[in-house]
């Protein structure tokens, strides 16, 4: 599923008693801006006394990835419904785009917990610096004991190495195009390519 990030801004329709109602803004991950608006109302009627018929959407903008040319670490906080309860979870993913990381999260939740799109709420999804040094927000005088945001999961930490190197073991040979596939081969395949 290819997701995009949208900023949806909405408020209750102004009335005589309340001429400037509170404006709400949400960042929604969805396939289209139409689905984004729908998701916006879904969340808004849970958080506020507001629904699509009583409210109005002021703006819907797509938020594009600022720099999709570098690999970043993303931490995603989610709330999801399992078969027997609802839980919070924090997951980390490496990707070039925030939307890519959120897509990975949905696939991961589906594979590991059988959780579908409709049962998952993305509470927070943001880039996480790789460590204390990389974190520009950390100010020891201001923050004190609060640790700076950093990658927590070991499966992501293992890739935070500028001299990373690993071999490609047990390679399955694959024809370069589907038309070159054959049912039978003359020789047994080799899986070692040094």
């Amino acid at each position, binding site marked *: 599923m290819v997701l995009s990030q949208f900023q949806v801004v909405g408020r209750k329709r102004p009335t005589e008693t309340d001429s400037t109602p509170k404006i709400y803004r949400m960042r929604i991950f969805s396939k289209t801006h139409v689905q984004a608006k729908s998701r916006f109302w879904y969340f808004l009627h849970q958080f506020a006394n507001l629904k699509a018929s009583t409210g109005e959407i002021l703006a819907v903008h797509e938020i594009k990835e600022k720099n999709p040319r*570098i690999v970043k670490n993303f931490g995603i906080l989610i709330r999801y419904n399992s078969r027997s309860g609802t839980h919070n979870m924090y997951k980390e993913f490496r990707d070039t785009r925030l939307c890519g990381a959120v897509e990975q999260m949905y696939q991961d939740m589906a594979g590991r917990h059988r959780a579908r799109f409709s049962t998952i709420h993305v509470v927070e999804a943001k880039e996480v610096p790789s460590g204390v040094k990389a974190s520009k927000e950390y100010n020891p005088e201001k923050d004190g004991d609060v640790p700076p945001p950093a990658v927590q999961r070991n499966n992501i930490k*293992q890739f935070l190495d500028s001299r*990373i*190197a690993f*071999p*490609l073991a047990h390679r399955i040979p694959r024809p*370069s*195009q589907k038309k070159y596939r054959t049912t039978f081969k003359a020789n047994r395949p080799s899986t070692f*390519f*040094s």
Partner: protein
Amino acid sequence: GELACTNRRPVKMPFTRFVEIGRVALINYGPEEGKLCTIIDVVDQNRALVDGPYGITGVHRQVINLRRLSLTDFKVKIGLNARAKSLKKAWAAAGVQEKWAATAWAAKRASRSAKASLTDLGRFKAMLAKKTRAKKVKTAFNKLKKSA
């Protein structure tokens, strides 16, 4: 960590080609098949961020699955997230183009693609060339056989 890579290797591995920053690889599947590229960052276990550099090999900067890469013996010296300009310089310094063309792997690929793109006249010329060579080999062989 205990990583057995080309820079620091505590353990001797049977592998000599590693997925690492600067490794030159051949793309073996997909629309960019047959082109060389350089690994400029590793996304995760299955994906790498790769760049041609575009000016030399025609591969744009993109994320590619490692299953689509065949690692070569060549490595260029670059830092993390190298820009296209520094990547081009590193390629020139390492002489990757010439070294790759000199390998048997590249020569086999080139001869196979040359044969596949022959016209009927080319195939005819190849047939004549094979015939002249075979005749020369056979006459020399028979002469040796008679004298032995």
